[in-house]
């Protein structure tokens, strides 16, 4: 027909689609922020949550979310790294690899509530971790692993084979070549993956209700003894995260200002993710530049 015309029409359609999506996104973000930002005050961010009187804050929930995220990354990142390296560098193209890939995909498609219950039975009850940050972090690791692994594998694969040959031809071990040459080059891609999965960890509620628990006991932010039950760093204490808090406030809370707390918390969540996103990007670029000495 008329390839030129088709080209124009197709481009037009794509622009429309992009515009629609941008509108949806802008609307969603706008909705959340417009509703929530007016409720964010210094007091809201720095005071404890209240069960049945107005004026509670989200200090503990906010900290718990961050702490849980960090702990999850500490557990899942090394494992995902190892698995990603395996898939990118060692895996042969055979049925075993097929099974491995399938199981990773299955892991990623497990409903979060099922993972939560699995974590609950295994970690909370069987291993006696109790409702704790650690249980939550391990449960979240289940989610995080497939996403991270896949992403790391792809980032590693995107580094040209020539680089690997360069390393091995110098008498470096495969391991050195991977860790010192390929991984640094793949770092920006890996970081994007970490950011994406962090976002998911941050917003996850269903898996945490049964693992990290729904209560935020009073903790002391001056107690640095990680083993003390009142320390904010103790990984064995129950911890309600921001997303769980939003869920709880919306479903069962009799708090008079539940709507405001929920809106404010959602906005805070989005803002924190935004900050995290930007800073990770910034740090990632810095590391990349430092490693490659590119200016």
């Amino acid at each position, binding site marked *: 027909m008329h390839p030129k015309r088709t080209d124009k029409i*197709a481009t037009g359609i*794509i622009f429309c689609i992009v515009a629609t999506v941008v509108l949806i996104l802008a609307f969603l973000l706008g909705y959340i922020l417009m509703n929530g930002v007016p409720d964010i005050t210094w007091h809201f961010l720095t005071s404890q949550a209240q069960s049945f009187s107005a004026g509670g804050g989200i200090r503990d929930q906010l900290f718990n979310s961050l702490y849980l995220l960090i702990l999850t990354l500490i557990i899942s990142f*090394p494992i995902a790294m190892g698995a990603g390296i395996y898939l990118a560098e*060692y895996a042969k193209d055979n049925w075993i690899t097929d099974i491995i890939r399938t199981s*990773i995909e299955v892991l990623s498609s*497990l409903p979060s509530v099922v993972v939560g219950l699995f974590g609950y039975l295994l970690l909370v009850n069987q291993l006696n971790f109790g409702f704790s940050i650690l249980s939550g972090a391990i449960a979240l690791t*289940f989610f995080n692993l497939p996403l991270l692994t896949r992403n790391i594998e792809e980032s590693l694969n995107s580094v040209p084979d020539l680089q690997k040959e360069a390393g091995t031809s110098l008498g470096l071990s495969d391991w050195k070549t991977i860790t010192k040459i390929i991984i640094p080059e793949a770092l920006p891609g890996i970081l994007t993956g970490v950011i994406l999965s962090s976002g998911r960890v941050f917003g996850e509620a269903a898996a945490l209700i049964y693992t990290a628990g729904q209560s935020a006991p009073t903790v002391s932010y001056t107690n640095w003894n990680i083993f003390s039950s009142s320390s904010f760093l103790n990984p064995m204490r129950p911890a309600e995260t*921001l997303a769980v808090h*939003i869920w709880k406030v919306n479903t069962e809370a009799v708090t008079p200002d539940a709507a405001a707390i929920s809106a404010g918390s959602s906005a805070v*969540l989005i803002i924190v993710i935004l900050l995290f996103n930007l800073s990770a990007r910034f740090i990632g670029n810095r590391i990349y530049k430092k490693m490659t000495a590119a200016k």
Partner: protein
Amino acid sequence: MDDIQRKLQQNSKATREDRLGKVICYTCIGFIILLVACILYFIASKGIATFTKDHVNVWQFLTTSNWEPGNLDSKGHPMVGALPMIVTSFSVTLLAALVATPFALGVAIFMTEISAKKGAKMLQPVIELLVGIPSVVYGFIGLSLIVPFIRGIFGGTGFGILSGTLVLFVMVLPTITSLTVDSLKAVPMHYRQASLALGATRWQTIYKVILRSATPGILTAIIFGMARAFGEALAVQMVIGNAILMPKNLVSPASTLTSKLTTDIGNTVMGTLPNDALWSLALILLLMSLVFNMIVRFLGKRGNIKNAS
């Protein structure tokens, strides 16, 4: 001279490093496999109990639509027919993927082919941000905006598959988009140059060359999106209506596997039939995602062969 000969025949630091590296990688992958095996075993053993311990007929479980695990029917059999949930879960997931895919493709093409610099820079963070919005928030936005909207247009209560689809559409959009972007980026630059050099228009290049060679990646992206839609519980639960009825149309209240699971699991006692029956739902969920995975693998392999020839 002798020294070099000796070194050639001995293990060195590099050998040990490699061995260590292999051990680390194999341990990690082994750990993941173990984990998956654990979860599979766990869900399978619990989910099968309904059929082995409580003697529910599998066929009946899958094809009847009466779900009252607490009660017995006139013949004394427990009433556990999961068909409505299965149908609804399938419909919601497929519809959400169906709606989201063109959008995700459009955005991904825009980000990689049309405005690779500016567009990508603008859209990328926003899309990543969307992944981070908790499902609870999606659920509440759905409940306060989408449900009344649907009610306004189609009447009824507004709860149902259509609302669920719309909420899931927004939720899976970032997943599908970002993975599609990855697979489009993976198409080598020289494909594009070659096609354009042959006089093809940009759209022809995108449609005939880039999309074709990225097909397996795009399919994987869709499946990952579907997986998310499949497993999503909290958001869907709020807008789907949670009625264990066969969905008559897109706007009548229905219930998905996950929504039922989430709603009821806390109210049942471990080891009893109502609890086992819920685990059977989880098992179905798992098997369904396995099936999806296999379909994609099959499609992906065919896509690859097509590309090669």
